[in-house]
């Protein structure tokens, strides 16, 4: 393995306090904030151990999908009235209430599907993911796994030392992604 290739150092901690201490030590190595994360069985408050500063924008895209779905529903009803006119009192009419109902439901349907798909993409989920991501099943026993993306060599050694000094157990370096 060449020096400088990215690896992940992972260590297990008994509680939030120890993990927070280790994360602070990693940041002062210095390691960039985005290269350090936790894996836990419960969501930890942002800043308790690590921070995720990347903006979450997919709700705005859901709004766009909602609009598209609503317009689709509106088009469906209006086009239907044009193609298959229903003669009422001698005239083909476009009825507004059904168009509103179908548009509303169409918009909501699109928003629900978009939330699932975009939520999955944003979280990084999907059964057909490529690449191996680091993980430790012991998080289900109440442990907190602290993971840091490091370069091989000094940075890797220092990260392992910092985690061990902060009370980390089973600290090791692995090939893989955060």
């Amino acid at each position, binding site marked *: 393995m060449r020096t400088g290739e990215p690896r992940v150092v992972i260590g297990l901690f008994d509680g939030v306090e120890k993990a927070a201490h280790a994360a602070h030590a990693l940041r002062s190595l210095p390691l960039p904030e985005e290269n350090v994360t936790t894996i836990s069985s419960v969501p930890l408050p942002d800043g308790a151990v690590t921070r995720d500063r990347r903006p979450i924008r997919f709700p705005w895209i*859901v709004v766009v999908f909602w609009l598209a779905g609503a317009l689709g529903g509106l088009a469906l009803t209006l086009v239907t009235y044009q193609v298959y006119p229903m003669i009422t009192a001698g005239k083909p009419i476009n009825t507004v209430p059904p168009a509103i109902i179908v548009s509303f439901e169409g918009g909501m349907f699109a928003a*629900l599907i978009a939330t699932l798909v975009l939520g999955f993409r944003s979280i990084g989920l999907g059964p057909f993911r490529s690449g191996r991501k680091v993980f430790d099943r012991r998080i289900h026993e109440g442990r907190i796994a602290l993971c840091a993306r490091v370069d091989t060599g000094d940075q890797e050694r220092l990260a392992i030392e910092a985690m061990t000094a902060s009370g980390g157990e089973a600290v090791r370096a692995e090939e893989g992604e955060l």
Partner: protein
Amino acid sequence: MKTENHLSRLDESKLYDELSRSNLPATKRWYAGTGALLLVVLAAVATFVYMMLTGLGVTGLNRPVMWGVMIILFVFWVGLSHSGTLISAILRITRATWRAPVLRGAEAMTALALMVGGLYPLMHLGRNWRFYYILPYPSERQLWPNFRSPLLWDAVAITTYLTGSLLFLYFGMIPDLAIARDRAAGWRRKLYTFLAAGFRGTHAEWRRYHVASTLFAVIIIPVAVSVHSIVSWDFAMAMVPMWHSTIFAPYFVAGAIYSGIAGVIAVMVILRKAFRLERVLTPDHFDNLGKLLLTFTLVWGYFYFSDYLTAWYSRFPEDWEVIRSYSGHYLPLFSLLVACNFLIPFPLLCLKRVRQSIPAMFAVSLVVNVGMFTERVQIVVPSLARRNDPSIWGSYFPTWVEISFIVGSIAMFALIYVIFSKLFPVVAISDVKEQLFHTTDRTIGGANFSTVVSGEGKEEGRET
């Protein structure tokens, strides 16, 4: 100040085992119970096939009462499906601290009750093999569906709500499926691995998961409200006495939430007993659900009274004849409805002793659902039986075919729920753990309190 949270005192493996008891290998008793439910469902399916082959004449439907048990069951089950997702979504958004053990059972109830309820409009069609006529596609008949038909609005709304409820249920299960994936073996492991979709629980994953969950909750609430509004418009768009009313949409929504809360309580009591969840589902949870039920007893009562107030005051002859029938031919129905929906639950739910008693809450929830089923009967039958023209007044009583549909619908709901609870955790394990993680003890003077942390932490170094 550092305090020890409640989760750190527990062995998380044991907690998982306790909360996922429903997923243990099936016993002979389970197979016997499921088999009995399946037989009842198959009997109802056979009855439906018989009805399809011989025609709607085997039911009690007649002129003028052309809607009967199938429409009553549709409204009842869609109403029952209401509260699960709605309660779950509202509790998630408001971050109610007691919500965790209730969420999964309630969300599952919504999706499964909707599956049952959605069958009945299709069964009611008469020519059931033509059900695809309601789908918007250009056909050889040179006709697209009539968008002015409330039947089509039902199809659109229920499809949206069922999809949303299933997605909401699934999305809420992802962290629990990840735990199950790491502990299961064999085919279950394959199933959970696929459904968990690689969720690990990194900080970024949790953060985005919470945003998506909240977004689902925000979207599903107006969908839920719209669905029962649209179900009410099946009635309100018709020029039938006591149906043609602008109050019907909120009145139906209030009634649906009312019966839904009662349904959630009944399901929770059964789950608590069946899977020994006494430590998780405490009397306090039932106390809170009881307060919700009490609130909606009053809301439903208000809408019910308002619906009749205008008819009573205006004295339109066709409306008045329907109201008069409540003190005559339909007096038993009306009495049962008012007793079960208001006179019995209202005083009982005012008492904390009742709200904290599990058997009493189970009894009240059953009484309310009997009342709400009776209310659906009372909405459908008397108005059609006393139409504008007295020369066609009639009456309606369900035949054995329709009775079998009632029994079959209950069995079908129970069967799907039993299978669901065997495959998936019926308690939102991650939510329970999160609640315990956020709960700490605090002493004020001589008293000890459990305090719950809420909100986000402040950035280090920033002034608070």
